[in-house]
């Protein structure tokens, strides 16, 4: 006799025990410390902070360890924790002109005021696996300090009026997407906020598609810079801005060809990407997608997936996507039963109909 499946509660608690055991691995091997993760897996920490929308290296490292290295799970953990944090205030807009640059490259000019600065990059590593014990590098000393002034490459074009001008303060006050729902059509500030939280892999593919003919983007990497930027807030009781710390950011400004349209003259246009920590792939992808999503504003025909803001913005979030795809493993007995009985009816009808058709055409079978 069938006995209704019971014991979900016990099954869950046993599963949690197994998970804890699997996460820890061999107990004879020391557990990773959060410092080790923060110091030696810093690019992973940066991605978790960026897509988790929370700049906290310690918490990101904790999430990575708890998620056993599953980055999307770590991002999810950080987001869920973030929900419970109170808001003390909002920072002033970050000024990336004053960034203490550690890396800065441009694909548009051979030399630029302030120079090209490679900084710590994987770009020229030749990707050979380093077997054996890697000896710790001695600390690196620069021969000369970097120049204080690092004018933005796009500002050089701006002086010649060759690139669209964006006046400071011309953007509308952005909404907070973690507090208010996304509504369509979304303005650029809202779109950028969505892309900033978006999955790196998704944005990378979307950006790639624009280079392969799905939308016309003609991009140049005008400038990519990475370094530290001060964070300022202006507490109401003080009435003036104070610095509360600094964070690492990667900023990408794309320059895109534009032949004019929608009342605008031919000029270069901008695509913008910003990422916490060292997140160059993400910032570049974001900048390409940002520019592509401006098709309506610039009067470009909207034909490609990366130009469709509902398509891009509704599917960019890994926490939403991962949850909904994986919810299919939840029980669907009831709906499946409803579909079963419908399908049985339809298939019965199909058989009967064919029987009638066969009977009415006796010669057809020969």
């Amino acid at each position, binding site marked *: 006799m069938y006995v209704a499946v019971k014991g979900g509660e016990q099954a*869950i608690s046993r599963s949690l025990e197994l998970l804890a055991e699997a996460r820890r691995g061999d107990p004879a091997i020391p557990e990773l410390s959060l410092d080790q993760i923060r110091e030696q897996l810093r690019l992973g920490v940066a991605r978790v902070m960026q897509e988790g929308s929370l700049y906290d290296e310690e918490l990101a490292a904790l999430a990575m360890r708890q998620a056993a290295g599953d980055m999307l799970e770590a991002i999810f953990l950080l987001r869920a924790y*973030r*929900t419970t944090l109170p808001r003390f205030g909002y920072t002033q807009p970050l000024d990336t002109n004053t960034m203490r640059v550690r890396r800065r490259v441009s694909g548009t000019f051979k030399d630029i005021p302030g120079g090209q600065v490679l900084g710590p990059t994987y770009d020229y590593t030749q990707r050979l696996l380093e077997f054996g014990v890697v000896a710790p590098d001695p600390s690196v000393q620069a021969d000369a300090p970097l120049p204080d002034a690092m004018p933005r490459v796009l500002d050089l074009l701006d002086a010649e009026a060759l690139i669209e001008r964006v006046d400071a303060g011309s953007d509308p006050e952005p909404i907070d997407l973690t507090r208010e729902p996304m509504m*369509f059509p979304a303005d650029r500030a809202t779109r950028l906020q969505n892309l900033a939280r978006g999955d790196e892999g998704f944005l990378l593919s979307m950006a790639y598609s624009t280079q392969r003919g799905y939308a016309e983007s003609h991009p140049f990497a005008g400038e990519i810079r990475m370094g530290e930027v001060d964070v300022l807030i202006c507490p109401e009781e003080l009435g003036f801005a104070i610095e509360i710390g600094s964070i690492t950011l990667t900023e990408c400004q794309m320059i895109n060809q534009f032949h004019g349209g929608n009342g605008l003259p031919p000029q270069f246009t901008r695509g913008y990407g910003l990422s916490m920590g060292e997140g160059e792939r993400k910032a570049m992808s974001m900048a390409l997608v940002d520019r592509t999503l401006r098709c309506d504003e610039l009067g470009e025909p909207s034909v490609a997936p990366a130009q469709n803001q509902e398509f891009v913005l509704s599917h960019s979030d890994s*926490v939403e996507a991962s949850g*909904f795809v994986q919810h299919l493993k939840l029980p669907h007995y*009831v709906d499946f039963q*409803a579909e079963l*009985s419908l399908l049985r*009816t339809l298939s019965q009808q199909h058989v009967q109909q064919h029987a009638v058709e066969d009977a009415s055409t006796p010669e057809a079978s020969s």
Partner: protein
Amino acid sequence: MTSNYNFAFLDENTKRMLRRALLKAVAIPGYQVPFGSREMPLPYGWGTGGIQLTAALLGPEDVLKVIDQGADDTTNAVNIRRFFARVAGVATTERTTEASVIQTRHRIPETPLREDQILVFQVPEPEPLRTLEPREAETRTLHALADYGLMHVKLYEDIAQYGHIATSYDYPVLVDGRFLTSPSPIPKFDNPKLDHSPALMLFGAGREKRLYAIPPYTHVESLAFDDHPFEIQRWEQQCELCGSGESYLDEVVTDDRGSRLFVCSDTDYCGQRRTGQAA
């Protein structure tokens, strides 16, 4: 109860935001109210909308029941019940009649609900027109104009092709004669329970950031045509455990030779009937 979090996890400002959105939803039956859905510690698609609504509704005196597929003991129902026991410390029950708030996925209990009960649905896709029109900006306009021709044509095409409407769950309803509404993926068997329900029915879609309501005693009509009236699922079998011929049945595969048996999907209803029979 975990004291590191506010009662029922969400902070009071978020609950206020949710309650205001819920009041708007009750005032406009069937209208999808956009709300500032929070990122919950459970995955999207697993009941985050329902959980936020329940969190906004619960007081310390409430008694919570959570069901998934009609059953209290399915893993996700257990997990959500554990969550609220942990962050709100409220009493929980498996008895439909004892609960003041019932959170559900995919079913409406067989036992009739009362005026002092609230049913909270978990909704994966709040937009009934979504499979016919993927653009949100467009579907909002269609709702504003009460232009539901797309859905009528879809149902008509079913009839033209199959001889009857081929939608078995998440069967679209018209609420209060105005808004086309998704009843969530309940089987159409449950649709009649939506009409003039004494209990308030609330629907939460966390991932899609929408909530909506069917207030008590609201007219809810399942779409149909005069010559093709709405019909619900029926079984030739009865429940193998309690003998009910009126409840929604789950089909259970009992061996690899095609043997099947049918049992109630509503475990509390089935259990109560069996207890009654034994007495």
